């Protein structure tokens, strides 16, 4: 869940970056911060990079969503099993005092 939210935040951020890159002109110098160094980047290259990053984020988000669904299904199954066991336990509890 947390990962999903983080990815969603990155998604929005990258979307904004992409849009702003579109606003920029090629004259503008684009730098990428790698560690503590600003590395000069080409605008088009930057755009591509950001686009790919976005796709990656989307894919990860989808994976996380499917994982979440599976986990939910598993949890439901476990809940059902648990409920059944509890029911049986109660039945046995009910029977035992009757027998006694």
């Amino acid at each position, binding site marked *: 869940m947390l990962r999903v939210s983080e990815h969603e935040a990155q998604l929005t*951020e990258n979307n*904004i*970056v992409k849009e702003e*890159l579109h*606003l920029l002109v090629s004259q*503008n*110098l*684009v*730098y990428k911060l790698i560690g503590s160094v600003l590395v000069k980047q080409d605008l088009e290259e930057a755009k591509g990079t950001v686009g790919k990053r976005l796709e990656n984020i989307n894919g990860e988000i989808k994976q996380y969503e499917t994982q979440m669904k599976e986990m939910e299904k598993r949890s439901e199954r476990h809940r059902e099993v648990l409920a059944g066991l509890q029911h049986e336990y109660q039945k046995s509890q009910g029977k035992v005092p009757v027998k006694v």
Partner: protein
Amino acid sequence: MAERNESKKLHPQEVSRFREEQVKVVTGCQDQIQHWKKVQSDYEALQQRLSTLPDKLLYDIMVPFGPLAFMPGKLVHTNEVTVLLGDNWFAKCSAKQASNLVEHRKKHVKNALDDLHKVVKNFEARVGFTEDLEKRSSEKGDFVDIIEEVENEEILTKGKRTAHKPCSRPKNQDVFDTNFEGGEGDPKATSGILTEEELWARLDELETQEELLDQKDRMSYNADTNGDDTTSSSSEEENEHPSGNLPCLLGEEGWPPVTQEDSRLITCQVNGNSRHHSDDEDDERSCVPTIYFTHTVEPKRVRINTGRNTTLKFSERKEEAKRKRKNSNGNGHSVPGLTKIKMPADLYRLFVDVVNGELVPRKSILKSRSREDSMCSDTSESSDDRRGFCRNLSHDESTHSDTSEGVLQEEENSPSKPLPLPGLFEAFSGTVVEKDPTLPSLIPHLTIVSPALPTIPERKAEEVVLQVQKEPSKRMSKFKAARMQQQI
């Protein structure tokens, strides 16, 4: 009252809790709104700064040197701004371009603010509702939360549904308590009053009784009781044959039985009917007796298909004659639409359809096999012979017939209900043939003046006819005997 108070206590607690949650949501939204508003204000300030920055080429400023020191310095390249685009991306652009970027970001902020405002509004409304509810529940006692406790037992019992008990009794049980099962083997009559096996046993008993009674009647036909018995027995015998017919018709028509009371004819019929009704498939035992009542009018030969090989005979003329006779006797309450059934013969009248102005007998609803033994043509001839014979008697006993009708009317306590059974009609057609060959003498006297009552030819009609011809004088119908006694 305690429960009510408790419910009241719970109620405000729940409401307050609900309200608290809603308030939390509202406050959270409010915080976010504040945050975004601040961001928005910052962006606006930035924009303003960007707009004024390129005015000068150089600015003398105090440059921060560490956290506690400043140094005088100059701000150059006022138009060159490095903008953080996000996700470690930087872009060097002019002031104007930067302001454009800022403007773009402001749009995003504005969208977020709008969404937050909407959420806040919704939750504020909810909070208002809950507050109102809380006030109502706490202050006024009129509003009470209706709480219905669901017991676990109820939930469990849902799985075990008790099936509806099968209809053990037929709907029409006005007078008779017998089971009118259809000839087709109605499933709903499974748990009837008498099971099939029991019915068969009962039938056997009745047959033996009949034979005994017939023998008695032969010996002493003057006795009233015996006469009644014989008539009843004869009727029973006669009815045995159409027993197959009766149940079928009964089951389908659902006719209420004739009252088993003083009217002798009706008792005969009823006894026979009860037995037959109780016997669903008494086809095997069906003999072919026909009871001839002296006071019955000989029916015209109109064949009614009551089975595969049998036909009833119906006569409209006789029907009218009968009706006139009835009316003349003062029985004016016979509604034309509702043919009052005072005699078994009346049954036939009901079950004759009027087609093309003529009375066409209804097709029998009985099983075909119920009439296997019956021979249509042969028996009809024999029945005609019998009828011819009986006609002579009927003329003699015309007065008796009237009296019999009167007797019937007197005796019949409760209004007879329509007996929609052609099979019954058959029992009381113009001729009734005794099953027992030893009782032929009763036959001529048993003829009833039944107008247009068709007779279903019986199997043993020929034998009976012969026997009837042999001993006409000895036998007297029970009805006749009763009438004579009454006259006396």
